[in-house]
């Protein structure tokens, strides 16, 4: 706040003091990514360079996690604050979203190792890009300025465009990359236009400044402001894959390398929702009556489109892609409540969803075998007989996504629906529950296929599926977390609640 005022009175060229600590988690990841690229270019031919990249990434993640934890400790003790001319908010909210991003990154990297080895794509660049994308997401989590959010959006997106097209031998992967890039660039432009309009209406891009302006001034001619809201929502709605901005999702999710899809579903959603929550619930709080109907509509359309379209799919990856649209709808229920309760419920949902979807995609990645092509429902037929553990794990992740009790998915749904009912939105909660029934049908189709008798399976004598150690670790961690969050969710719920209370304004 003080630095903002100082900026306006003193020379405009003076750079603000940099609080390195506030962006330490991002710097750790960013350094890791740069180091990987550097090592790659220095040691060109050594086959060990891929392993080195993994170790560097691991070191970066651990350092970043430690800094995030220390930040939480300080925020918990001293309260939230802003740094770097109000561009960065160091608060519980940022810490929570960063945690989800780091967990997603770790799990996605773990399942990537086996995937890359199998596909003979052992490129350190892949690791670097994923870490870089996560850096963008971390920036997004703590960005307190529309410009910073835009920068974060670009950092995370550009890396993801490349990652989507990473398996360049597969046409579908190339198509995914191109499609994601074209539509993504378009949505970035829309977002930027929204930033411009909000700036035009309020005279600042700082979220704190906007909130202050809106609180202090009655905007009589609010058309510009509202169009700005709408465009921001469209731009971010694209990233969270909310209908009707979901057109890219099935194709990109299906075409991208499976670990990248997992990462996109888990981490991108968390980061973009972090931005939505901070911008709409945190900043445009006073105008909630104006944007809530829009989010209400997005939530209903997302849930309906996501579940109903998933019913007719025969490709498991596409099914999960459509269900991911539906899950965006469930999180939007929490956003729509526009309350503390809703925000913490949305955060908890994002955490659980990241674990469920990455776990599910880990199994999908293994089942796909070499070539990453075998995603048809037929490829899952009779799997339970041959691979009982793998089938059991996928069942767990799918049932959790359906919101079955004693899994984290149920607690997550309980959170968002109780936030909706608390805000008086009975209809939204009911629509959510009923679409959950349809989505249960989708998940059960996969489960039924897995538990179908072997006779219906294609009678080829195939090698058993290979689960490499890293994927095994990822599966173990994700499944344990999903069950623990379903049975004793108290600690994570408290974390989500505290994260919302400690919001830098």
């Amino acid at each position, binding site marked *: 706040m003080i630095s903002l005022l100082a900026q306006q009175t003193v020379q405009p060229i003076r750079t603000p003091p940099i609080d390195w600590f506030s962006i330490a988690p991002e710097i750790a990841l960013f350094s890791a990514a740069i180091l990987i690229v550097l090592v790659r270019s220095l040691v060109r031919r050594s086959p060990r360079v891929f392993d080195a990249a993994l170790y560097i990434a691991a070191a970066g993640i651990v350092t970043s996690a430690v800094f995030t934890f220390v930040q939480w400790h300080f925020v918990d003790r001293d309260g939230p604050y802003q740094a770097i001319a109000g561009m960065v908010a160091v608060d519980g909210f940022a810490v929570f979203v960063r945690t989800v991003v780091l967990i997603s990154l770790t799990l996605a990297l773990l399942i990537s190792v086996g995937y890359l080895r199998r596909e003979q794509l052992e490129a350190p660049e892949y690791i670097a890009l994923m870490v870089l994308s996560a850096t963008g997401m971390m920036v997004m989590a703590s960005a307190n300025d529309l410009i910073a959010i835009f920068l974060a959006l670009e950092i995370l997106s550009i890396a993801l465009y490349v990652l989507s097209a990473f398996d360049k031998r597969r046409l579908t992967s190339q198509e995914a990359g191109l499609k994601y890039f074209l539509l993504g660039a378009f949505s970035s432009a829309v977002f930027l236009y929204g930033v411009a309009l909000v700036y035009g209406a309020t005279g600042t891009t700082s979220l704190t400044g906007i909130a202050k302006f809106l609180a202090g001034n009655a905007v009589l001619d609010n058309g510009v402001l509202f169009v700005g809201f709408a465009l921001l929502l469209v731009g971010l709605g694209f990233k969270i894959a909310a209908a009707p901005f979901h057109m890219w999702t099935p194709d990109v999710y299906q075409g991208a390398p499976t670990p990248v899809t997992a990462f996109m579903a888990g981490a991108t959603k968390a980061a973009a929702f972090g931005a939505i929550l901070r911008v709409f619930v945190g900043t445009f709080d006073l105008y909630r009556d104006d944007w809530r109907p829009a989010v209400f509509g997005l939530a209903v359309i997302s849930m309906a489109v996501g579940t109903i379209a998933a019913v007719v799919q025969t490709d498991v990856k596409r099914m999960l892609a459509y269900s991911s649209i539906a899950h965006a709808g469930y999180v939007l229920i929490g956003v729509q409540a526009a309350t503390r309760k809703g925000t*913490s419920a949305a955060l908890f949902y994002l955490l659980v969803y990241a674990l469920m979807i990455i776990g599910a995609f880990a199994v999908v990645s293994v089942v796909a075998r070499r070539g990453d092509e075998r995603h048809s429902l037929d490829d899952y037929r009779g799997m339970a007989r041959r691979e009982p553990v793998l089938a059991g794990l996928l069942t767990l992740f799918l*049932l959790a996504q359906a919101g*079955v*009790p*004693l899994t984290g998915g*149920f*607690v997550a749904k*309980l*959170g968002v*629906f*109780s936030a909706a*009912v*608390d805000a008086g939105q*009975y209809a939204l*909660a*009911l629509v959510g*529950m*009923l679409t*959950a*029934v349809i989505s*249960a*049908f989708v998940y*059960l189709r996969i489960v*039924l296929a897995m*538990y*179908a008798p072997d006779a219906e399976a294609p009678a080829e004598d195939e090698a058993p599926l290979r689960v490499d150690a890293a994927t095994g670790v990822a599966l173990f961690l994700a499944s344990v977390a999903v069950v623990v969050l379903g049975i004793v*969710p*108290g600690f994570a*719920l*408290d974390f*989500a*609640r505290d994260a919302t209370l400690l919001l830098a304004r």
Partner: protein
Amino acid sequence: MSSNFPLLTALIVMPFVGAVVTLLMPNRRPELVRIVGYITTAATLGFALYLLADFATATHGYQFVESHSWMGEFGVRWLVGVDGISLFMVALNALLFPLGLLASAKVPNAKAFTFWMLLLEGAVMGVFLSLDLILFFVFFEFVLVPMYFIIAGWGYDNRRYAAMKFFLFTMAGSAFLFVGILSVAFLYQRDGHALTFDSRVLIEWASTHGSMALGTSKWLFLAFAVGFAVKIPLFPFHTWLPDAHTQAPTAGSVVLAGVLLKMGTYGFLRFSVPMFPRAAVALAPLMLVLAVIGITYGAIVAAMQPDLKRLIAYSSIAHLGFVVLGTFAFTAQGISGGLFTMLSHGLTTGALFLLVGMLSDRRHTREIAAFGGLWKSVPILAGLFIATAFASIGLPGFSGFVGEFLALLGAFLTSRWYAVVATSGVILAAVYLLWAVQRTFTGEPEGENATLPEISFRELVTVVPLLALSLFLGFHPRPVLDRLEPAARDLVTHIEQNSDYRAPVVSKQGPKVAAQEAAP
């Protein structure tokens, strides 16, 4: 056992622990898994018997209550307790599972089967013991998962369709229930209280005059009702049941009919009616009409079934109709009768499904037309079947009579014409079951029917306890009624206090005795 032993938690957790242990057993040793299954269910039955013995009859209200914080953020607690309404459901559940496991000693893939059965037992225990609405819902919904896998994994030809239908129907019903639960809790919070899902607190609050408008409470009652009606199943939500019952393996059918259906009627008695007494009284005609339709429709359709298992499935719709009839009669007799029927139906229909399972194991068909003259080839099995059929019809001397008689009596006091129509259900029950018995067991056995193997000792052990209990309770229902009635009377008093309904007063002595007492 010390007095502060968490008996109810043990009842719920024991099967779950057993399920985890089965997972750790080696795949190649199914006999180990079976032993774990028997030990776990037997231990649970032991806990249940201890509970029965230790349950105080003189007091009313919940006993053995345990309360721990669970999801503090949402105000959800691990809150369990037992009273007359739930006591016998717990006992029935604990009894049916060991018998069900015993009956399915020959199923393939015993490890997975035992795992799901144990999970199911724990979840059903949780349903009947939870006093926290969210905890209740957790178990209520979780029950679907193991039951789904039991039907889909070990059922008959059309099992996958039936399992899916079962899951989706009940889950759709639960959607309304869930929103209803959340709505009650948040209305309570908006009234200026701390958020809680403790059913005792919410019942106390929601049933009080002035806490919510009659319209609100009607909507909420309906939301709860849809969730429970699908489970019972009440006409017109019943279409999943014949499929699920017919396709489920024997043990699945036994527990489905024995305890799972009762989760619906239990929900009405435990939550819907006490929480929204005015709405319940106002909407009672609707519920009574549906109950009577269920009784007559279920019976008529049952008579037309060519498949023995489907016949029993439809008969369940009719029997559960009596429970709903008794419940919405709002008299102590009606509610006691409903509760008694819940127990009795679990015993008799459980036994019937076991016997049909034996027949179908022997003949590999359940078509009534395929049987005939079994009386000559398997006299003991036939005798047991006929005795069980009589018990199910409600012949005096069996438990079915006590329950349905009380339910009809209670309904006659307040909703006379419904009771009159429902009585036809008793006659129709005799029609469909006796007709089926006649076609199956009488005549001369031909072909395969002449050479069926007689009932084995293991099979005998599964059926006899159920039949014996039914017979015992038919002659001596006092031990059960002593524990049911305080809860039933409590419920009626609660409805009277919180609505303008008044239960009719029936003199226990009758007019003659009363006059003599008045004379001196």
